[in-house]
């Protein structure tokens, strides 16, 4: 049994320390995934909390069965986000606020520059095909491994690798186009 499997098994049994460890190791990437998808800090914060509340509610029924924990977690995050978008009845792209991100260097000019660049990246990822952008969000936004992305999306690892390659190639072309 791997370290993560052991941790998840303990969390499923209601072990507070194990749950806390899973929470801490996944919190930032769930927030990042939701933020880059929604482009809105307040919404990303609300949904991050909703995701972990859902995880807490459902973890008792989690069964390993070769599905990595991260895939299960990001399916919840993805579903929460889709529900949220449906509730808000809006298109899933380019709906950003002008939130100042938490950067290590608090220089306002640098933050503004970064926000502009981030918005450009987000905007162009939003123009990729749905399958390509979902792979890019999960791989680059959430930092999931190819196996985890494949499991979360119900695709083969080969397909995910192809989508990733072609997605980045298309993104490069889009980024080169004048704004």
């Amino acid at each position: 049994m791997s370290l993560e499997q052991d941790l998840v098994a303990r969390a499923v049994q209601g072990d507070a320390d194990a749950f806390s460890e899973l929470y801490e190791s996944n919190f930032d990437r769930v927030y990042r995934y939701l933020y880059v998808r929604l482009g809105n800090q307040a919404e990303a914060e609300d949904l991050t909390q909703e995701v972990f509340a859902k995880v807490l509610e459902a973890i008792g029924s989690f069964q390993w069965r070769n599905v990595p924990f991260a895939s299960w977690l990001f399916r919840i995050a993805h579903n929460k986000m889709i529900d949220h978008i449906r509730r808000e009845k809006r298109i899933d792209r380019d709906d950003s606020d002008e939130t100042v991100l938490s950067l290590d260097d608090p220089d306002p000019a640098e933050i503004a520059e970064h926000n502009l660049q981030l918005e450009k990246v987000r905007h162009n990822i939003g123009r990729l095909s749905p399958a390509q952008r979902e792979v890019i969000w999960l791989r680059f936004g959430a930092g999931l491994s190819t196996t985890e992305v494949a499991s979360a999306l119900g695709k083969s690892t080969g397909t995910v690798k192809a989508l990733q390659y072609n997605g980045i190639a298309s993104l490069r072309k889009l980024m080169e186009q004048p704004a």
Partner: protein
Amino acid sequence: MTDGLYELFDQYVDGLISGEETAVCVVRDLDLSEVLGPLLETSTLVVQQLGAVKPSPEFRQAARTRIRSLFFSRLARKESRPGLLFMWWQRRWVTAMATALVVCLAGMGLLAASVDSLPNGFFYPMKTATEQVRLTLALSDLDRAQLQLEFAECRLEEMTTMAGRGDSDTVVLLAGEVTQLIAQMCTGVLFESLDIDSEISEVLAAGSAAGSELSLEEALNTDRAGALQLLQVAMDSAPPELRPTIERLMSALSRDFDASISLIESSA
């Protein structure tokens, strides 16, 4: 060939995500650097831009506190609502074990000795174990709620006594236990129709934050306010038989917290 390229690119992306330098990646495969180089440059930009997105420390702290209190709130609810089969099994065996324990202890005079014991006393664990047995053996949800209130009142008395001895650490712990007992009662079957999970979470979160940020007096006042808030909500939908006990506990809360604060201050 294409599959090999996808595979190789994926390995480089793995490296990038884990913080490896792109240049190092590309140099390793000079023949492919012309194809992969530009894509890795774009990948690096994406990793850098998206990777810099982080939750604010304030949100991280607030979310951590909320999920922790949710965790314990659910745990309390789960413990107060065991499955029917489990209840049957548990009651059957615990009755037998508890009876045997009580007979043995009563024979030795230990049970009586444990009733008045204090948190730092030798017999105290026996006292709390006996309370758990009584909760398990409670014949109805109303009886269980009565017992939880009775034990909360007992913790208040112990808190005042420990305050008189200047043991502020134990006072804070006991104040927290009072809130926990009341929260457990509120999440019981008797109050099922009462949707107060969020209030319980807030109260428990305020209590857990109190220990680290506030003075002892402020922390105790926070615990008292939280416990009173929960009791007030419970009072509105409590069965008539339970209301006098809730009222008595509300008076005891005001009285014993005041007494404890003043005793701790005078012993400081």
